[in-house]
């Protein structure tokens, strides 16, 4: 079981390494978004510090969302998805493996890069820490929820937009509690409450979403 999930994840990771673009483009986008803000707004530190949580979290969210359409599209186009569906194991686990790989090449690097970008915004040490932690907890939820949207829109005309449209409402809670956690730290309040809700969202995203995704995939292939 776990071996299977591992095999899927390993294959997707190898593909990502081969292409590299997948990883780099998410990061690159995040960097561009986060760097253009200070340029546009000007260098007043107080203002930047106020903007930081929102900007960084929105950047991470957008970067993840942009990478969603490709989550299943390549496998769909070249026939691999049919093979995955026909494999003798619960499709939900296969999806879990793919979600995991997606997180490893998008969410994780985003979370690790975020503090570096946070310095641009003159964030203090504890805020940087909470920023990283909130992204580490929140991005798995983004990947998990996003997979449902990606599966539902597979092969449809709407493509990319449709994903965004479906997924955005479900992302907003993650955004609110994620950015809220950092904001709370900046303003000196505790971040625990926010982080624990974020954790609950992540657990739901990682353990329940794959089964919905699996159902959506079967429908898309019909």
């Amino acid at each position, binding site marked *: 079981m776990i071996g299977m999930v591992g095999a899927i994840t390993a294959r997707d990771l190898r*593909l990502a390494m*081969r292409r590299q673009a997948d990883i780099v483009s998410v990061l690159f986008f995040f960097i561009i978004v986060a760097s253009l803000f200070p340029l546009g707004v000007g260098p007043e530190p107080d203002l930047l510090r106020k903007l930081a949580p929102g900007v960084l979290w929105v950047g991470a969210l957008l970067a993840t969302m942009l990478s969603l359409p490709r989550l299943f599209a390549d496998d769909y186009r070249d*026939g691999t998805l049919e093979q*995955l569906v026909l494999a*003798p194991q619960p499709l939900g686990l296969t999806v879990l493996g793919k979600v995991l790989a997606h997180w490893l090449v998008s969410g994780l690097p985003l979370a690790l890069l975020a503090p570096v970008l946070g310095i641009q915004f003159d964030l203090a040490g504890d805020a940087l820490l909470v920023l990283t932690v909130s992204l580490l907890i929140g991005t798995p939820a983004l990947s998990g929820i996003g997979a449902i949207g990606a599966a539902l829109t597979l092969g449809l005309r709407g493509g990319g937009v449709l994903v965004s449209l479906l997924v955005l409402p479900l992302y907003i809670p993650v955004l609110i509690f994620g950015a809220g956690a950092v904001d709370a730290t900046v303003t000196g309040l505790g971040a625990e409450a926010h982080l624990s809700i974020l954790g609950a969202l992540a657990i739901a995203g990682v353990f329940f979403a794959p089964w919905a995704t699996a159902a959506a995939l079967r429908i898309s292939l019909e």
Partner: protein
Amino acid sequence: MLEASNLECQRGERRLFSRIGFRVDGGEMLFLQGRNGAGKTTLLRMICGLTHPVAGEIRWKGEPIGQLGDEFREELCYLGHLNAIKEELTPLENLLASAHLAGEALSEDDAIDALEAVGLAGREDLACKYLSQGQKRRVALSRLVHEKRALWVLDEPFVALDVAAVAWLAGLIGAHLQRGGMAVLTTHQAVDIPAGAVKELKLS
């Protein structure tokens, strides 16, 4: 073993076929015929459980495949029009990945063996995007070399292959049937498969 009765398929406004039935037992091959667009691919995908018929039922060892789920899929090997290989990966990586994903333990030596058998020796480490059309098809077919599952469902497996490879694949299918395996296949080419029992089914 594999039985279908009274199958009917509807696509858009069009009824592709209806009242189709067949039965394939160990060692037998079902050869599906029909002109382009007759519904062969659709029927094969139905047999795999990827599409559902409007009416009728497909049974494996007496049970409807929908209820069997993974139990059925463990004995099924499907090869479609699309090669299901990744252009960025090498043939070796593709073969290993697809075996793992199908839940089979394939050692690297066996994989290299299979690629050699399929005529890709020396290309194991070249990304598939550089391969020729026929070579890509061979990568997809290399899965069959060590495939022990009972039911092979092959959709035009001979496409893009050269004469030598067609003969080799026909032999491979023949050996599978000899071992008591089953195969359902379609092709528009005239291929001589050394099989004992061939059933034909014509969609029109």
